[in-house]
């Protein structure tokens, strides 16, 4: 049967090109997803500062207990946005484990060096140098509080030699230090340059008194590794921490490696899932069409020799061979695309520079197998139709156009449509994350309902549009309407693909636009301050205090950007938050408070956005239970609910609540409002000069730095939409081209009957206009409903903003699709003399 399948493919290439393209593009997309996911799976980051440690104890994520469902307690593990910390006492406990030579406390202190303001520096205590190990190249280890040892690379960048003096800002304090020595670790290639204080100084500078960030374990010679690991794990478990050994130490050293790993795994999985869905749909459509075009061949096979099972096996064999061919074409392009995406992600900072792609030894076979796993069942479903081909069809001329579809299809389509309409109501009455979820569900339900109801929609549209087509296109339009009605079933794939592209693509793409725009607008409109003070490693709280004392300054607010963990539907999720110095905060920022007062913010209280209040169920005057970025639970009273959550974060806390619970422990920037006419800029610049990397910017160009996860999400979402829409358009174009080329006989007959070429083209144009018009109208309607619901829920604006280029892209894309996929093939067909065309076998 495979030999026969191969001959069929070779002989009727045209019928298989569409399926082949759909499969090859599918293999490509899945190869990219697979390679990224596989690389993320193996990616551990490289242990540098911890390479000499046998194990590292750290707390980078937290497991939150959810509600009890059917006797099982659900738990979610959330990465801690600000890293967790460990009690100092744990260091002694770990050190006491038999077999442990030393347990070294490591504290990471956010640091900037004035001599090399552009370098990423992290400060540590000298004891932790043993974990790499760092060795002294020149000079000596730090001995006094004002001495530091610096990484060789930092020394080069800042021209620091032993004995040199420089200013550092560490843990929010500015100090003059003397370089005691230059140190070097074997194979330190990462981005962060280490700077060592004495241990006592590091403990003082740490934003978390009495706590350490990680504990490195160095073994005695000949210690029982398994026993030590087990004992340390028991201790760690009590503190909610994890023990990292072997390559995993890289994850302990750099939580951002773990975050990148998680992000890439999730994105790869989500992409792969969507891709699989749409590949199945495209393959089913193209195989179905190729089966329909070869009805007579199959009828002949059935009449003379082939059982229904053999015909199905033939169709499956064809698709199986095509999958292999598609693999040969799709894998290399997928590998190239994966490298491109890796580079883009690294440039954008979504993944660390050392995130490397692995060979894809798992991913490539998995991608081909995945496409086969999706394509073969789809082909099987399409092939089942061949069973219904009566062998007697081989005898006659007439090929019967199949019925529109079964009752099951109609009923489930209508049921889904009902669900989708009900979901519109749900998004209307809820808000925040719940509404967002409902809107996404509504989007899927709508698209699915349209896919199921497509034959009837096509038929109804053909009937309804017949008078209009006739008026506009004359007799050609009349014929076009008749053709549309007869081909209602054949054009199902086109309608579904276009509705999917426009409905889904439009919603997600323009949602990003709206979110970004709204973030910028809220931030701009809500920022009352004219100036912002920034520093390379943040600014100490004293900076805001000093700014307030400058004559002409009305208010200055130190702002910390952080992330907190909030409850969501019984689970936990993260929310963007800001910590402010509440003194005068209402004069530097206008959060558009709906209820309560921002001035009431203090330790023990919180202000939240209305979207966040909705999804967490918090009320003004009530309690909000959440966890700070390091996992510490807090129970705060809600004193204000505000609108501008996108621009300023969904949770606003007093900086005093955050103290000791953020990794940096400093303000990210200070917002300064000056009296009208007062020129405070020179004074502010003098103030900024006191801090490494310090600068003053106008808030008109300062966008409040939208959270990075929004930027990541935006780029990934756009990429996803582009791939999905591209794929769906490909499927639609495939179907249209196949359908157009199969019309050689019909068009020849029409011309022999006296139709001019022009009339034939007009007929094709009329069909296209109606078909694409209906698809666009439905797609736009779905996108409009879903987009307004989401934007209303998240932004609080009922009318979403759609840029003019957006409209142009949607409509221009549809017209281009129509031109490429039908106008060109029809034009080619019309070049064949009609008498010759009649002889072409269908």
């Amino acid at each position, binding site marked *: 049967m495979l030999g*026969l399948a191969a*001959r069929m493919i070779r*002989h009727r290439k045209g019928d298989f090109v569409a399926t082949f393209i759909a499969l090859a593009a599918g293999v490509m997309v899945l190869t990219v997803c697979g390679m990224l996911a596989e690389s993320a799976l193996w990616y551990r980051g490289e242990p540098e500062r911890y390479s000499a440690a046998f194990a590292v104890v750290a707390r980078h994520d937290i497991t939150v207990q959810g509600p009890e469902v059917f006797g099982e307690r659900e738990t979610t593990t959330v990465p801690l946005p600000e890293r967790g910390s460990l009690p100092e006492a744990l260091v002694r406990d770990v050190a006491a484990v038999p077999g442990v030579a030393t347990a070294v406390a490591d504290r990471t202190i956010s640091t900037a060096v004035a001599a090399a303001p552009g370098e990423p520096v992290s400060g540590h205590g000298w004891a932790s140098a043993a974990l790499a190990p760092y060795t002294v190249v020149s000079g000596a280890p730090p001995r006094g509080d004002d001495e530091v040892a610096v990484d060789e690379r930092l020394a080069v960048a800042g021209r620091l030699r032993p004995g040199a003096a420089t200013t550092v800002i560490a843990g929010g304090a500015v100090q003059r230090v003397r370089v005691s020595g230059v140190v070097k670790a074997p194979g330190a290639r990462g981005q962060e340059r280490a700077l060592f204080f004495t241990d006592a100084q590091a403990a003082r500078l740490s934003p978390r008194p009495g706590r350490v960030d990680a504990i490195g374990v160095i073994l005695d010679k000949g210690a029982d590794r398994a026993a030590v690991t087990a004992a340390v794990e028991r201790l760690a478990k009590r503190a909610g921490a994890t023990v990292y050994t072997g390559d995993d130490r890289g994850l302990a050293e750099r939580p951002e490696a773990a975050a990148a790993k998680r992000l890439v795994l999730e994105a790869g999985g989500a992409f792969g899932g969507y891709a699989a869905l749409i590949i199945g749909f495209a393959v089913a459509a193209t195989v179905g069409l190729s089966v329909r075009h070869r009805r007579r*061949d199959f009828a002949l096979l059935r009449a*003379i020799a082939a059982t229904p099972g*053999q015909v199905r096996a033939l169709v499956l064999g064809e698709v199986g061979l095509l999958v292999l061919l598609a693999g040969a074409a799709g894998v290399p392009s997928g590998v190239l695309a994966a490298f491109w995406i890796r580079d883009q992600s690294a440039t954008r900072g979504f993944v660390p520079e050392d995130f490397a792609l692995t060979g894809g030894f798992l991913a490539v076979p998995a991608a081909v197998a995945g496409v086969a796993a999706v394509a073969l069942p789809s082909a099987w479903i399409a092939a089942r139709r061949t069973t219904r081909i009566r062998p007697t069809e081989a*005898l006659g001329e007439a090929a019967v156009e199949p019925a529109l579809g079964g009752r099951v299809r109609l009923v489930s389509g209508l049921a889904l449509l009902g669900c989708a309409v009900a979901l519109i109501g749900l998004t209307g009455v809820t808000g925040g994350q719940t509404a967002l979820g409902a809107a996404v569900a509504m989007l899927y339900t709508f698209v699915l309902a349209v896919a199921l109801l497509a034959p009837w929609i096509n038929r109804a549209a053909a009937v309804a549009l017949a008078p209009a087509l006739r008026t506009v296109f004359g007799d050609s339009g009349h014929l076009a309407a008749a053709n549309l009605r007869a081909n209602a079933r054949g054009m199902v794939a086109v309608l579904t693909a276009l509705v999917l592209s426009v409905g889904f693509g439009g919603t997600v793409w323009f949602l990003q636009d709206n979110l970004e725009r709204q973030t910028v607008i809220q931030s701009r409109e809500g920022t009352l301050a004219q100036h912002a003070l920034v520093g390379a490693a943040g600014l100490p709280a004293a900076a805001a205090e000093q700014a307030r004392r400058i004559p002409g300054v009305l208010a200055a607010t130190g702002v910390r950007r952080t992330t907190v963990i909030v409850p969501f539907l019984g689970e936990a999720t993260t929310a963007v938050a800001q910590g402010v110095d509440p003194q005068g905060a209402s004069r530097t920022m206008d959060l558009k408070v709906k209820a309560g007062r921002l001035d009431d913010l203090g330790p023990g209280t919180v202000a939240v956005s209305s979207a966040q209040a909705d999804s967490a169920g918090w009320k003004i005057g009530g309690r909000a239970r959440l966890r700070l970025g390091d996992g510490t639970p807090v129970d705060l009273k809600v004193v204000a609910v505000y609108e501008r959550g996108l621009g300023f974060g969904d949770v606003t806390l007093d900086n005093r609540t955050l103290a000791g619970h953020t990794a940096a422990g400093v303000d990210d920037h200070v917002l300064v409002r000056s009296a009208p006419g007062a020129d405070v800029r020179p004074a502010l610049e003098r103030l900024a000069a006191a801090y490494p990397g310090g600068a003053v910017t106008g808030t008109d160009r300062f966008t409040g730095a939208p959270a990075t996860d929004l930027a990541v999400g935006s780029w990934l979402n756009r990429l996803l939409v582009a791939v999905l829409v591209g794929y769906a358009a490909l499927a639609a174009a495939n179907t249209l081209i196949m359908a157009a080329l199969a019309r050689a006989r019909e068009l020849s007959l029409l011309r022999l009957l006296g139709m001019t070429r022009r009339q034939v083209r007009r007929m094709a144009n009329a069909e296209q206009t109606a078909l694409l018009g209906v698809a666009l109208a439905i797609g736009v309607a779905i996108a409009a409903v879903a987009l307004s619901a989401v934007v209303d829920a998240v932004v609080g604006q009922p009318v979403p903003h759609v840029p003019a280029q957006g409209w142009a892209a949607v409509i221009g894309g549809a017209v281009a699709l129509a031109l490429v996929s039908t106008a060109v093939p029809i034009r080619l067909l019309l070049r064949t003399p009609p008498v010759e065309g009649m002889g072409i076998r269908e």
Partner: protein
Amino acid sequence: MSVPPPADAVRLERVSKTYGGDHPVTALVDVDVRFRRGTMTAVMGASGSGKSTLLNCAAGLDRPTSGRVMIGAADLSTMSEKRLTELRRDRIGFVFQAFNLVGALTVEQNILLPSRLAGRRPDPAWLAEVIDRVGLGHRLGHRPAQLSGGQQQRVAIARALVARPEVIFCDEPTGALDSRTAAEVLALLRSAVDATGQTVIMVTHDPVAASYADRVIRLADGRIASDMPQPGVRVIAEQLATPAGGRRPVADREG
């Protein structure tokens, strides 16, 4: 199997066929007919007389609404679709008016298709003889699109003969051919009956084609209107021109 093969290659017993729908159409009414081994029968009749339905039912391509169809000793009415296909593959040959061949396959592959789907190797000596008889030895590697209509029909006949079927059904085998080519194709079918004792049942509206048969059955309105030994082209043509059972003689017509 010690039972000697029945003398009838095909037997229809009280076969009726009604096509459903809002306005049911009765295509065959209580047809009883037997086709003897080693004979060639022409089934004639006006359009809509039920001759194609008769062929479809007799060949197991379509199922009668009531009645029984026997191919040799096998009763078609109780067979599954798969068994029917296997029966067609092993014991029935087909020659249709057109679209007889799979375009993707060469002449040789088309001839061997049924054996291949059945997973059998045909007897090479017999295959060589059949190919020689249809005179296509030099065309085996060609594709159907490269052949004339007559050559295509000869390929179809070769395909039908290779399996040594119980019976060969032909549906207007010369309908799309000019008279000279048609004569060659009909002679080939005739020789299959005479030389190798094949049974041929042929639906045709062409009196010349019918004149190659041993027996001519004429259908009208789903019933057998006449059943007689082959009386010659002229009589057949006259019979055809007459409305069912009528006596009105019409002008002599041939062709």
